[in-house]
């Protein structure tokens, strides 16, 4: 069996003196779409930041494809193939759409036919093509969400971390994101996403991990988890 794409063992993470993750374990199988479920402040975003090296770590081990990346700076984590799409989108507002993509692009050890280019990205997100010279700060929320995903894809990641991709977006756009995630997964990419919206998660994910107070509470297949009574009570509002 091939090693997990991503594995976290007993991770502690801190914001200054405040501890946010308490021995969190997580396993993301290669090729899966895994979703982190949990309330606001449960530690979903922190988990992603911990993987990217953007928060201070205490104990624990992080592995990508069996290789330890614990304590690496963000740019090195990115270069072993982990792409990060942050929660607040964080496009470079003063840069055009094309320039945003240019920042994300780098020459990887990927065969040229599998490589992401402007054209391929615009095929995935047709609306962006017409906006290529527009400043990112002038885009709508949905367009910015597409741009951040596109920007991350330009780095040719094997694993993509999507932090609350449906947050604050109109239902139509959320459906587009669903399609995008399915497309990426079909192309062989491993996806880890965090969500509060279980309905959205159920449409795309095959595995789920429930996080509460900085710990992984439950892990299993999406069907298992969404049928779990505790999860239903906590997250599936009628």
């Amino acid at each position, binding site marked *: 069996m091939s090693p997990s794409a991503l594995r976290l063992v007993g991770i502690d993470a801190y914001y200054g003196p405040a501890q946010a993750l308490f021995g969190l374990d997580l396993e993301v199988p290669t090729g899966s779409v895994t979703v982190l479920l949990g309330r606001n402040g449960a530690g979903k975003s922190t988990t992603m930041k911990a993987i990217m090296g*953007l928060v201070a770590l205490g104990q624990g081990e992080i592995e990508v494809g069996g290789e330890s990346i614990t304590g690496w700076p963000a*740019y090195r984590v990115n270069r072993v193939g982990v792409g990060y799409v942050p929660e607040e989108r964080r496009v470079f507002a003063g840069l055009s759409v094309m320039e945003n993509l240019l*920042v994300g692009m780098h020459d990887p050890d990927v065969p040229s036919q599998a490589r992401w280019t402007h054209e391929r990205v615009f095929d995935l997100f047709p609306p962006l093509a017409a906006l290529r010279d527009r400043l990112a700060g002038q885009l709508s929320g949905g367009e910015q969400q597409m741009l951040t995903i596109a920007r991350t894809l330009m780095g040719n990641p094997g694993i993509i971390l999507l932090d609350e991709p449906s947050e604050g977006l109109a239902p139509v756009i959320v459906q587009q994101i669903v399609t995008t995630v399915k497309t990426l997964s079909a192309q062989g990419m491993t996806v880890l996403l965090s969500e509060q919206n279980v309905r959205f998660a159920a449409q795309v994910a095959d595995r789920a991990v429930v996080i509460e107070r900085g710990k992984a509470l439950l892990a299993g297949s999406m069907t298992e988890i969404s049928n779990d009574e505790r999860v239903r009570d906590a997250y599936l509002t009628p």
Partner: protein
Amino acid sequence: MALEDFVSFIVAQAIAGLASAASLFLIAVGLSIVFGVTRVVNFAHGSLYMLGAYIAYSLVAVMGDSFAGYLLALLLAAVAVGIIGGVIESTLLRRIYHAPELFQLLATFGVVLIVQDLTRTIWGPDDLFAPRMPGLDGAIDILGHAIPTYDLFLIGVAFAVLGGLWLLFRKTRFGVLLRAATEDRQMVSALGIDQRWLFTAAFVLGAALAGLGGALQMPRQAASLSMDLSIIVDAFVVVVIGGMGSIAGAFIAAVLISELLAFGLVIFPQITLVLIFLVMAVTLVLKPSGLFGRPEFLTAEDVRNPDPPLQPSDAIAKAGWRVLLAWGLVAPFVLGEFSTVILTEIAILALFAASLHFLIWGGGLITFGHAAYFGLGAYGAGLAVFHLSAGMAPALLLAPVAGALGALLFGWFCVRLTGIYMAMLTLAFAQIAWSIAFQWIEFTGGDNGILGVWPSAWASDPTVFYYLAFLVCAAMIWALRHVMFSPFGYTLRGTRDSALRSSAIGVDVMRHRWLAFTLAGAAAGVSGGFFAFAKGSVFPEVLFVSTSVDGLVMVLLGGMQSMAGPILGAIAYTEIQTELNRVTDLWQLVLGVFIVALVVVLPRGLAGLSALLVRRRTS
């Protein structure tokens, strides 16, 4: 005819102004680029400019016989300074990117001191004049005025650099990365870009531009050891007006300032400085982030870790204060009459440092120009004696008034800004006060200072004067400490920890900061007044940036988190300086290395060191 004369005069002045704007633009834009990417305001940027001038001088002497050789010498000087900048970045700045802004400013000021002494050692203390540039040493006639061709060359270079930078930032991946990093460095890193490489590259670029600016000045003015600090203050003004991180802003503000100077000097030379000050003030009030700057956003990365709350003294601390007080009272007898001069100075500087600590630690207000209020106090007392033949007592009473009034005026502008903008504005105000004291010879005596500021007969005995200074300064320090524990002090500390939350519960943040500023100004004024009588004279140096830095080093040395810090710092710093002066001529070099080491190795000061030792022992 008269109209023609007028037009040709305007054109000639405008061209002269543009020529001066060229170098100012080169240095300001470099400062701005480096700040945009690394978030460090590099005080030593003026030193790089100075190095550019000195290196160009030496290269021109070797190869400057022809136009091409001269040009090559200027370019090589820029390259050399770029390399020096790269060395400074990778050895020093890289270690302090995560340090608080104040520490970064101090560390780079340490570099200023080091470069000054090294430059003096290599090129000597005298001003150096380079020959004119072959082929550009004449003048051409424009509307009846002889315009130096070199001035036109300078203007051409400025536009070429502006165009080149525009291309770099718009059309190359490197430029796009720099712009992206200016917006969100963390995201750039998460997208796979190694920041270290980007930071070094930005710094080398900025340093080379500063070096070019300095080299280009060689045919126009002599290379001197004072050009580093004078240009950096001008550059701060330009960057504050134009907006941090903006290339167009640096260009337009440099032109604005230079034209104001060019015309101001002809029309009303006395108030030129005031004019610049007014432009800056109006800009900042209307647009606090400068003409083209973006407002600073607080991101999660920037939120400061709140300091541990100030505790009322426990039994040990109370005993410590009593010991300090008792020692102050008996010291003249124990150490002998000879030591009272130094003891007096320590008492005065302890109050100065305490007033600075009150602002920085209590209010979270980063000031780099606290010398202004110390100096205003000293000048207030000195001028009262000199012009009004006032006695010591009324002169000493005037000192805090002068300090407070200055702080009231300057503070109104400064508290509108935060962080690094505030630091630069406070510095600019202090330098303006310094240049007024320096230039207004009829009133202040200029460089010759005010002499004969001696204590009244009853306090003329050094021991008596020491007790007077000690008791008043100790009372003032106690009062400052008392304020820190008053409702006002609690509110002030609240605004420090979170300005946003404080204003959300109805606190007028600016008013509290303004009041704190004024209060600290008055306290600094008291110490300045005593300083004048202790020395018997007042010189413009009391207002100079080095006095502000002395205060900051004392606060830092003593440790920020303790109320006793500034006092311990004043004692240690005065002793160190006295000893250093005795053993070496290169005291600036030693002090610079000391400051850099202090920031890098011991950012929590002596008090922090002792806390560290205690923790080690207990764990």
